[in-house]
């Protein structure tokens, strides 16, 4: 084995440490000449995919604010919006230290929480301590808003509402459909969707014939789906995250389970879904916070009596692609993160200040519309103004089938059988 000169070894270590120390301190900022928004992002680790989307959405919104909006107006002046971010690696230990650095060293005026309810909660105490607005753009747990935090403001919708719209939709077009099967991932988020769906289904008079969960990171759903098949459900609702959503659809096809409707959360509305599943995905639905093709515009805002801010849908998409330097389509993680930034800008401009208490109050009073849809929070900071859309794959294209005000096409119901779909080959 090659022996490295010990002196060189130590010189290397010392220069590494020195470099780290030098990278430390950032010179202090004088008077207010820009608005800084800080983010402990999840650019690697288990939330990397959603984190990357959120990052792109935020950067796109920030660029729009600076280029098209002219900056943030405070006291008659327009100031540039700056985006500072560090990678929390999807780990809770890193979140608190990075958030504090953003607050104390980078002197940010507001914070964006990391993706996922757990990590949002992990950082909430730090935001509370420093009294800084903490924008929840990736944590859908209703419970975050029952804890008494004063600075958390949510843009993503709560989990319990994900599938309620789907049930309404089915009830309206097929009153005879009664049997619902619920099969969700056993995670805090998916369970909140399941509980919300169950409650709503029972209210609407549906019959829950199957209710089971599967563990995170499942690699084979066959046993659960075989049991589900035996109950012969009309509607199947379920899912959790990306990979299990794809697996769910695929294995329903493998086991030849046909239902009149299948709606999967998180996975089904993303382009990668169809790429992975091909024609098997046709007819499959999913609830989404935002889908390319929704018709939110300044005109709609006017009709609804809401102020409008932000880029148009197409502008957002191109800003997003430019921000990431890749030709990938933004999904709702990107849209909601971008919308959070827009909400903040409106809050600051309405409060005419960057003082966190004033901005927080302004955000509480605020309601507006953007490319993402309408936005309104209740007094705990929970998002109540944003409706979900239901999307369905039809011949390889995503069609928005509900709500009526946003739809781009009619629902295909019942969904084609897997036999029909594979014959298309």
């Amino acid at each position, binding site marked *: 084995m090659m022996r490295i000169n010990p002196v060189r070894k130590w010189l290397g270590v010392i220069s590494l440490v020195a470099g780290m120390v030098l990278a430390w301190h950032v010179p202090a900022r004088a008077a207010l000449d820009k608005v800084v928004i800080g983010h402990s992002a999840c650019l690697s680790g288990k939330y990397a995919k959603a984190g990357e989307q959120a990052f792109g959405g935020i950067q796109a919104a920030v660029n729009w604010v600076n280029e098209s909006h002219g900056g943030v107006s405070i006291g008659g002046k327009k100031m540039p919006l700056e985006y500072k971010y560090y990678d929390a690696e999807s780990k809770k230990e890193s979140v608190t230290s990075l958030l504090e*650095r953003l607050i104390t060293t980078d002197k940010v005026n507001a914070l964006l929480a990391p993706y996922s309810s757990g990590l949002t909660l992990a950082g909430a105490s730090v935001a509370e*301590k420093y009294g800084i607005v903490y924008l929840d753009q990736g944590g859908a747990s209703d419970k975050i808003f029952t804890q008494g935090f004063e600075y958390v403001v949510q843009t993503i919708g709560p989990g319990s509402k994900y599938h309620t719209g789907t049930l309404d939709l089915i009830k309206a077009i097929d009153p005879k459909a009664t049997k619902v099967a619920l099969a969700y991932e056993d995670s805090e988020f998916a369970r909140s969707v399941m509980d919300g769906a169950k409650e709503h289904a029972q209210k609407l008079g549906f019959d829950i014939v199957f209710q089971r969960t599967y563990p995170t990171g499942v690699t084979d759903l066959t046993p659960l789906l075989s049991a589900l098949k035996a109950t012969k459900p009309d509607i199947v609702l379920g899912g959790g995250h990306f990979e299990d959503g794809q697996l769910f659809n695929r294995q329903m096809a493998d086991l030849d389970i046909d239902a009149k409707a299948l709606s999967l959360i998180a996975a089904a509305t993303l382009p990668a879904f169809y790429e992975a599943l091909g024609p098997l995905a046709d007819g499959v639905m999913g609830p989404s916070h935002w889908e390319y093709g929704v018709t939110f515009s300044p005109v709609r805002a006017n009709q609804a009596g809401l102020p409008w801010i932000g880029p148009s849908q197409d502008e957002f998409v191109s800003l997003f692609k430019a921000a990431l330097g890749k030709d990938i389509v933004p999904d709702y993680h990107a849209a909601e993160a971008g919308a959070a930034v827009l909400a903040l800008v409106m809050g600051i401009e309405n409060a005419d200040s960057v003082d966190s208490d004033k901005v927080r109050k302004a955000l509480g009073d605020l309601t507006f519309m953007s490319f993402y849809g309408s936005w309104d929070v209740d007094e705990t900071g929970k998002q109540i103004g944003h409706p979900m859309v239901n999307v369905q794959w039809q011949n390889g294209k995503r069609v928005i089938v509900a709500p009526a005000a946003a739809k781009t096409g009619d629902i295909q119901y019942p969904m084609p059988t897997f036999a029909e779909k594979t014959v298309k080959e």
Partner: protein
Amino acid sequence: MSPSRTRLVRYYALLPVLGAYLVLFLIGNGQPDMWQLVAMLAFYCALGQAFNLFLGMTGYVDFGYVAFAGVGTYGMAISISHLSAVEGIGGWAIVIGLLLGTTMATLLSLAVGAVALRLRGAYFAIATIGVNEGLRYFVEGARIWNGSDGIIFSRDLRLIFGREAATALSTFWADVLVLLIAALAGVVTLLFMRSKIGYALTALRADEDAAKVMGVNVTKYKIMAFITSAVFAGLLGATAWALKLTYVYPPDVFEIHYTVEAIVIVMLGGVGTLLGPLVGGLVYGLSKYWLAVTLPGFQLLIFAPLLLVIVVLFPEGLVGVLKKKIGNRPLGKFIV
């Protein structure tokens, strides 16, 4: 040198350890933007010291180590969420939480130890992985402690302590506790090293069968080290995860990644040394932080080959290398 003085000299090595933690505390407390960073470093150091209690002394790799921290977290979470309804419970909720967490960790370690400590080498490692994963799925599957819904108790913490104090608890006092745990783990490590346990386990590390033949009660000391190490993990979970973050979800605490981090930290510093985990924790935490700030998104790509290089070139860790250089000189008393 008088006998009492010789005995004291054996404990000189505590000075750099305790001194380092004191310095960390002072830096964190003094500078406005350093406390959370210090808290993170304290966590890694504590994790390393606690893990080293078993790994360093026996050479066994407990891959399911994080399970002890996990149950510790639940102990505190259960205590706080259930006691918030009790009037005027105040600080007792934390004390009870620590006790509950420690008890649960101890019970778990007894159960695991009974099974796993009969095994050696890779078999031990794999058995313990099984414990962590099995426990996680059992908690989720049998829906104990709320299953996958976890326990979120920020509100309960505020009910007990009031808003200001609760925030201070999560952002400062929890971390002070972590520093104390790290320091305590260091003290206990040295106490072990300098006592019968240390001698017995050194013999075990060298050659387990020979030690047994020589009449050393290998099993008893293995169990002592195992339980002690587990208790510290439980304390760490109760403070750094429960008290500080005010929530617990099973997949976030029964996460095997932490055991790997503990191994990396201990190896970086030097397995079986006293200062090793401290140095390892600092180096690991600081490099992670620095990379997260300067190269977000690319850290692990840099970190992975760096790890490989270190493992291959410095198998005895930084402190191990230092010991070799300075061991024989007077300063060597402090580097253990």
